[in-house]
Structures are given as structure tokens and as C-alpha cells.
């Protein structure tokens, strides 16, 4: 058995950590910093808070606040051009997965002779990036600890950049930034993080013991705290645990791979603009049910972390309890669970199924149970 495990060299977790980002970036040698975020982060006042912290540490700041969900290539290029014009020597990404993904690419592109398109694919980036600090405001994508950026190209296709240089120097978790997340965002991103942990643990391609330990610890934290933050969004301890769980699930999946849940979620996001976390939530329960035949022992193992207070008579009982618990979490999340209610076109199901098994093959290869086009279409129809 042979595997590699990469991680962010430094993680800070503290309520109020936003006030420390100036010291963190200046500690990395940065003096001219670009803050990459979206308009929501500005209106919440977080961008101003980051700016103050950076300036207090002696950094000049330029703000790019035009990141949009599933960021387009042109947004990333605009941000990089602005960064070059300001001669930035450090980048702070602050926001959800889209802002963090954009910030990673900006840090890589500023001093590179490569174009954004040159980076599409695996290990295509040649140069070094600028000092980079990532601060998630959802829990979450785990983007702060992955070396992946997903963007939408001019043809409305998702393009993925996998490159170790995308791992930041520091990931900073500040639960205060997540206290005001609306319940639907909390639910969608929280379920997304759980999917990361589950798919990492059952990955057929790069499952490994380090990722396993992080995935199980993450699942325990997320499962225990998602109901708490949905009941009371201002529960700082539970919000902290969600951020920690999301980060650990991110470390796990980027080193072990995600699988069919992500594969089936991608076309829903790209074609019908369903937010990534919600798209995952839509397909997770039926896929876990589908996988049960092949993944029973692994789901039984995960039951011990998701349902720590229960004892099970045997593996089959434990695995079934796990699947039921996932179904209940999705049902109680408050998220819409039917595709037909989300403006998804039923006619698109066959071509989405083709895209999943052909275009996103590498994720299906990591799924514990193989999937045909018919299987995929049946899963979509089941939740239509």
C-alpha cells in the first residue's frame, strides 16, 4: 500500500481570529495584500474587519469583492489583473468555497506566465504562488485545506485545477464569521462537509488510514453539531465544531477522493445553478442507499461515529442505522429535496447521466459501488 498525504502546514482556530489575519499575513512576509471575497462578505462588515486587521499590521490592501458562486474564469482573471496592477505580494481569501477557490488561483496566477486555461487539469501549475491565507465563512467546503479550485469556463462547463501549490500557508477558522449564516446555507454546507467525510472513508481509489482518522473524527463532530447549529445558529461552540469538522473532512477527502455523490451533484450545479452543498444534499441519501450493498462494512464502521450512543447487534443493523440517520438528517435539514421543485428539467436526466459516468468518471471510480448510466438516471428520477 502506498499513498501520499498533503496538508496545510498551519491551522489557526479561534473565535475572533479575523483580527489576527494582519499578523498572519505579515508573518508570511506580505506587505501588499489582496482580499478576495464576495459582495455578501462586504455587506456583513467582514471585509472591512479584515482590511482593518491587515492595515493595523502595516499591510496595504486592495479588495476584490466580485466573486460569484461557481466563479467564472473571467472573474478570476479580473481579480488576477487587479492584483498585478496593485503589485500584491500576498492574498487573503475570505468567504465560502467560491471565494477561497478564486483566491487560490489569484495567488498562483499573479507571478505566473501561465494563463488560467493552462492550469486546468492535474499538476499543470509550474511556478510558486504568493503567500496565501484562507478563511472560510461556511462550514463547509473544506476549500481552505484542499489543493483544488473549481471554476466555470466560458462554455458553462466546470473546470478543475488540481495543484499542490493551491494549498495555502495558513487556514484560519473564526466561528464568529459563521454565526449569522442562514439555516439553509448552514444545512447545505454542513451536509456537504458530511459527504466529504463519508466519501473519503469509502473511497475505492485513495482511501488511507490518515484520511480515515480525520474523516471519522469529522463525521462525529458534524453529526453531533449540525442539529445544534440548525436549532440555534448563534451557538458558538457548535459553530466552532462545525468549522473544525468541515476542515478535517476537507483534509480527508482531498487526500482520499470524493465519489458518486459529488459526481451526480456537479451537473445539477452547472446546469441548474443549485448551490453545491444543496446539490450534494439532494443526491446523498439515495446514493448511500444504493451503495449499501457494497459498503455495508464501512457504513457500519461509520455508524459508531455518527451514532456513538447506540450499540448494534451486527454489521447489517449498524449499516442500516447509518443510512436511516443520513436520510433523517437530510429530511430534517429544511432543504428542498425534490428536483422538480428546483426548476430541474426532467428531459435533462439522460444527458446528465451520460455526463456523470463519462465526463466525471474519476469520481465514479472512487465510489464503493460501480454505477451505470441507468443507475444514475434512476437515482435522479427517484428524487425528481
Amino acid at each position, binding site marked *: 500500500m502506498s499513498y501520499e498525504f498533503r496538508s496545510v502546514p498551519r491551522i489557526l*482556530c479561534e473565535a475572533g481570529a479575523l483580527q489576527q489575519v494582519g499578523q498572519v499575513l505579515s508573518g508570511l512576509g506580505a506587505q501588499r495584500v489582496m482580499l478576495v471575497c464576495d459582495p455578501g462578505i462586504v455587506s456583513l462588515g467582514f471585509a472591512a474587519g479584515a482590511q482593518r486587521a491587515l492595515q493595523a499590521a502595516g499591510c496595504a490592501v486592495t479588495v476584490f469583492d466580485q466573486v460569484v458562486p461557481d466563479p467564472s474564469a473571467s472573474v478570476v482573471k479580473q481579480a488576477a489583473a487587479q492584483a498585478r496592477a496593485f503589485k500584491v505580494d500576498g492574498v487573503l481569501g475570505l468567504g465560502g468555497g467560491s471565494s477561497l477557490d478564486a483566491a487560490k488561483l489569484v495567488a498562483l496566477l499573479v507571478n505566473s506566465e501561465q494563463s488560467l486555461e493552462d492550469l486546468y487539469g492535474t499538476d499543470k501549475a509550474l511556478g510558486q504562488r504568493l503567500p496565501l491565507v484562507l478563511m472560510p465563512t461556511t462550514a463547509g467546503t473544506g476549500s481552505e485545506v484542499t489543493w483544488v479550485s473549481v471554476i466555470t469556463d466560458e462554455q458553462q462547463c466546470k473546470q478543475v485545477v488540481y495543484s499542490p501549490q493551491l494549498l495555502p500557508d495558513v487556514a484560519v477558522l473564526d*466561528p464568529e464569521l459563521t454565526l449569522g449564516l442562514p439555516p439553509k446555507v448552514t444545512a447545505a454546507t454542513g451536509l456537504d462537509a458530511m459527504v466529504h467525510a463519508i466519501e473519503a472513508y469509502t473511497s475505492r481509489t485513495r482511501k488511507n488510514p490518515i484520511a480515515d482518522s480525520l474523516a471519522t473524527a469529522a463525521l462525529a463532530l458534524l453529526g453531533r453539531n449540525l442539529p445544534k447549529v440548525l436549532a440555534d445558529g448563534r451557538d458558538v461552540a457548535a459553530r466552532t465544531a462545525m468549522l473544525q469538522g468541515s476542515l478535517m473532512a476537507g483534509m480527508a477527502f482531498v487526500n482520499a477522493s470524493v465519489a458518486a455523490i459529488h459526481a451526480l451533484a456537479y451537473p445539477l450545479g452547472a446546469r441548474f445553478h443549485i448551490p453545491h452543498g444543496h446539490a450534494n444534499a439532494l443526491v446523498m441519501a439515495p446514493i448511500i442507499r444504493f451503495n449499501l450493498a457494497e459498503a455495508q462494512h464501512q457504513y457500519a464502521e461509520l455508524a459508531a461515529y455518527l451514532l456513538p450512543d447506540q450499540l448494534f447487534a451486527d454489521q447489517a443493523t449498524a449499516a442500516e442505522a447509518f443510512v436511516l440517520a443520513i436520510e433523517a438528517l437530510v429530511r430534517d435539514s429544511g432543504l428542498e429535496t425534490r428536483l422538480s421543485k428546483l426548476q430541474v428539467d426532467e428531459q435533462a436526466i439522460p444527458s446528465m447521466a451520460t455526463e456523470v459516468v463519462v465526463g466525471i468518471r474519476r469520481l465514479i471510480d472512487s465510489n464503493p459501488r460501480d454505477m451505470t448510466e441507468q443507475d444514475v438516471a434512476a437515482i435522479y428520477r427517484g428524487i425528481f
Partner: protein
Amino acid sequence: MSTFTFETTPRVICEIDGALRLGQLCRELKAERVLLVSDPGLLRAGLLDAPLAAMRALGVQVTLYSDVQADPPVAAVLDAVEAARGCGAQAVIGLGGGSSLDTAKLVALLCGHEQTLESIYGINLAKGPRLPLIQVPTTAGTGSEVTAVAIVTTPSHEKKGVVSPLLYPDIALLDARLTVGLPAAISAMTGVDAMVHAIEAYTSVHKKNVLSDGLAVQALRLLAGNLDRVLSEPGDLSARSDMLLGSMLAGMAFANAPVAAVHALAYPLGGQFHVPHGLSNALVLVPVLNFNRSAAEPLYAQLASAVVPQQRFASAADACDGFIDFITRLVARMPFAQRLHEVGVTAQDLSRLTEDALKVERLLINNPRPLNRDDIHAIYASVL
């Protein structure tokens, strides 16, 4: 408890015969001239031949420094620095036990930035950059490949430590093939040492955090599940891999959630009686666990599921008993000294040992139950 910093080695490679890839890794780090730091025992055993040949086959110019001694004296570290400067090393590889890895850390630091060793004793006084650094442990182990500490012995026989995040290497490479020849006594001592790292990180009063916890539990599971096996079947590569991995995960855990009384009481045994570090820990481990019981029962109960996963316990008290009982039996069947008198300690020495242990306050403060002079004396006396 929810506020923490977590730092670690950003890239880990686990692969049997991975040492044969060192040439390729040097290339990735853009190093053509490299210093390999190791010890005479490994050289004599021929363990360096294949990695050296593989590196040279790729055109990497390797200079070998194989004079590392246990508890590295300052003069030896400075010799190694001279060797690195002499060959114009662009990267450093540490291959060996904790002493070789500690020496390699300091060589990379002192060659990367002009500074004297004396000026960097202490916490965060070292300046970067350091030379690119790859660490390849051959014991399981110290976890030095994922810790930010290097210890040297001064001419006046004082131990001095350099603590700096710069000491985390670029890559930790775990190659179980390098550990199959370890004598049983060394495997046993280093294996118990690694278990102590995991246990003390999990119960650390300061800086205990969810990431360290997850890694410590997985570490303990791997170490407890494989230590007997590597003693009875030294050539079992799978068990050796698991021990190396467990040792590294325990290292990641205690690098961020520091060790406590077992280490504090072990140090004087090393200092005054030259007892190997792992054995010193093993000698005091069980009495410290019994002492801590009243304060750490819930935590030891949680660790029971890592060492005796099949066993069900009616209560936390039972599980705590189960954990301490498992460790007690495990230590008792190890092929090394079980009592202090076997390593030359007499009743007259206990007071001096106690006084020295009290001086290790920086570790004693991490212990789940506070210890006073009488407590420490009683612990030593109980294993005389």
C-alpha cells in the same frame, strides 16, 4: 479547548521502498547537490546503499554524513553543517532515528540562514529560510519527522532545544523496509514511546484539540494493534508500516498537544542513568497512568476503544480499567527492563530523580492531574 493552532509537515509519503524515490523527490525540490545525514549503524547495516544508488542513478550528487551520535553533541551537528557547506548542499535528507532527524533539521536551518546554533536555542528564535528538508525515520518511533523540535547536548552535558516551525520538513517519507531489521528491544522501546506520545497528547491539559485527538486515537489503534506482531514477526512489512504510520500520527498529535508527566519523569532517567528515551518512558508509564486515573478517567475510557476495540464496557470506569489493564499487560511482556533497579537506580537515587523531574515543569503542567514532590517520589518508588 476550541482555540488552537495546529502545525504539521505538509507532505507525507507512505510507501514500501519509498526511499528509492529520494532522487526523484530531490529533483522535485530542485536540489542537485544533497547532504544525507545518517548514523554509522545504518551505514554498516547497508541500509543506505540502495537509496544512495537510486539517487546517484538520477544524477543527484549526494554527500554522505554518517557520523550522527545518539543525543547529538553540538560539535557533531557543526561537523555536519560543515559537510553540507563543503558540498554546496541545496537540500538535506535525514535518514535514521530521532538523532539523525534532529541533526538534519539543524543542518538545514543553519545552512539556509547565517546564524549560530547558540543563538537559536529556545522557542521561535531561528530565522528562515532553511534548506529543503526530507525526513526518513528508521524507527517507529520518535515522530521527529513531524515535530518542530531538535535537541542537542552541549559540551557541559546540558540538553538544549531548538523549537521552530521551520523544523517541520517539506516531506516525511515512511518506508517500512528500513525498519525490518530493528532489534526487538529497540522496536519495543520506540513503539511504547510512540504510544506514550499518543496517550499524553490525548490527555494534555493544554492545547488538546480535535485534530490531535483524531490523530492520537488512530495512532494508538495502529500501535497497540501491531507492536506484538513486529516483535514476533520482525519482517512483517504490513505491521512495520502500521507502526511507522502510528508513530508519525502520534508525532503529529503531540507536536500540537504536548506530552506530560510520563516524559517529565522519564527525562531524569535518561540524564542521570543514560536509559534510552523509549525505555525511560516505558518504566514510568503504568504508575503515571494509575496516578492520573482519578483526573483522566473519561479520557482513558475513550482510549479503550482504540486499544481493545472489540470489548464493550458497562461504564466509563470499566473502560478506563480496561485501558490501563491493556497498557499494563503490554508493557509487562516487552523484552526490556521493567524496574528501575534493573537500569542501575537505587533507593538513594530517588530524591535526586524527583528533584530533576520537578524541574521539567513545562511538561508537568500538561498532566491531567497535578503532581507534587511526594507524588513523583512515590511513582519512582513504586517501580524501583
